[in-house]
Each structure stands twice: as C-alpha cells, then as structure tokens.
C-alpha cells in the first residue's frame, strides 16, 4: 500500500520536473519561463521529498525532507524575483502577446527611479476599511 503511494508521489514529482524543463524550452520570454521553473520545480521537489519521507518513515529522514522543502520554498521565489527583475530592467523584450505593462511607464531609466503611480492613492483607504472590520 505504502509502495503505491510512494510510487505515485515520485512519478508526479518527476512529471512536474519534466514539465518545468519543457516550459523553459517552449515558453516565449523570460518572465513566463520563470513561472514554469519556480512553481513546477518547487512542487516537483516537494512531491519527491514527500515520497522519500513516506518510503523511509524514519524521523531523521522525515526531518531532513521537511527541511529541504522549507529551504526550497524560501529560496525559489527569491531567485525567480531576482532573475526576473534583472531581466526586465536590462531590457529583455517581452513576448508580443503580452497584454499590458504597467511598469514600463513608471520606471525612469535615467534616474533609476520607480514611481508607485495612481495605485498609491488607494493606500489611505485601506486602514479605514480595516478598522471598520476589526478581526
């Protein structure tokens, strides 16, 4: 019974890893590729580690598997953010199917400034909303 569960988890993990690499090959531009690698590989690693933990069922192995998953979840989004940001600001072209880009017009290349734009005006409204609905 436990072997079936372990096999399913390992196969699913491997499948997500394969999808992540296919995504890197197929997707058209840098940010969409980052989508494929961050999410699919994080989930793939998590499923594989769950399979390992169930297979050994030993507390030291389980602790290490949990630690590996935690570290992947801590580091993967930061790496994706840094790569995506560096790519965007060094002028990598977005895919032609991109529907909107609210960042471009607010970024001052000469001064290296990033304006917050009209959305910042929504900010004062939010604490008011929160105090009217205390939790």
């Amino acid at each position, binding site marked *: 019974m436990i072997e079936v569960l372990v096999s399913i988890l390992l196969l699913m993990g491997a499948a997500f890893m394969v999808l992540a690499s296919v*995504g890197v090959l197929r997707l058209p531009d840098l940010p969409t590729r980052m989508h494929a690698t961050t999410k699919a590989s994080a989930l793939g690693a998590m499923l594989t580690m769950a399979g390992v933990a169930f297979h050994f069922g030993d507390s030291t192995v389980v602790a290490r598997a949990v630690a590996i998953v935690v570290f992947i979840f801590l580091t993967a989004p930061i790496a994706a953010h840094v790569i995506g940001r560096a790519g965007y600001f060094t002028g990598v072209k977005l895919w032609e199917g991109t529907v909107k880009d609210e960042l471009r017009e607010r970024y001052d290349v000469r001064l290296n400034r990033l304006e917050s734009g009209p959305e910042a005006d929504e900010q004062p409204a939010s604490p008011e909303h929160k105090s009217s609905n205390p939790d």
Partner: protein
Amino acid sequence: MIGLFWNLLLALAWVTLTGSVTAMNLLAGLLFGYAALMVLQNQVPVLKGYSRRIPRLTAFLVYFLKELVKSNLKVAYDVATPVWHMRPGVIAFPLRAETDMEILFISSVISLTPGTLSLDVSDDRKVLFIHAMFLHDEEELRSDLRELERRVLKVMR
C-alpha cells in the same frame, strides 16, 4: 515570532528535563509549551494572540498548498498543449503590507502561486509590480491577490 521562539525553548527544556531525545517527546514538549503560553498570553504583552496564530498558520498552509497545486496544473496545461492560452502582462498591485518582513513574505508567496511572479517594489514601497501569466480577468486576479494578502497579514500581525 517571539512566541514561537519561546515555544521551542520550552520544548527543548522539556526534552532535556525528561531526558529522552525522541521526536515524540519533542512533540509532547511543543504541545505542553503551547498550552503554557496559551495560559500566559493575557499577562505578557509580547505573547498576545500567540495561541490564535498557530491555527491561522495551519489554515494558511492548507490554502497555500491548494493554490500551489491549482496554479501548477494551470501552467502545466498551457505548457503541455500546443496553443498558447496565456495572456501575460505586468500589473501594479497596491500593497497593504508595511514592514520589510511582511513585504518579503507576501512577494514570496505571490511568486509561488497562480501564474504570478513579483518583479519589483516601487521606491516608496507602496506598490508591488507583478508579472501575471493569465490576465483574462484582471479584476478577478486582483481580488484573488487581495485575498492572499489578507490571509498572509492575518498570520503575520
């Protein structure tokens, strides 16, 4: 945060005093420490609301895992089928989070969920720029992100 630290410290004290270093005993120590902090939290200001935070954290983790699987299936479907269904774009999302830690946590969680990737924070730290993969319905995406942020802040504050 400090409550979690005290809980761990109490669990370690329990393990050393009972003299058996096993996972089950550590778990028992954590449970007793949690109960002790639950009694103490009304007297000690830094511990205020600690016992409420753990169930919220669990609820958040369940919600987060659900979203993670959902987002992966969506992205996987688009990668595996020959036609592109995605409509990528960059949107500006006003933040309610204020401290560095809250912004870090929210942008990380956003990077890990439904076809969204945080690109940058504006200089005044009020707006987060997000690259989204499925911009078919921007209002829906924004309300989903708002819901996610609300849940994160509930755990953090």
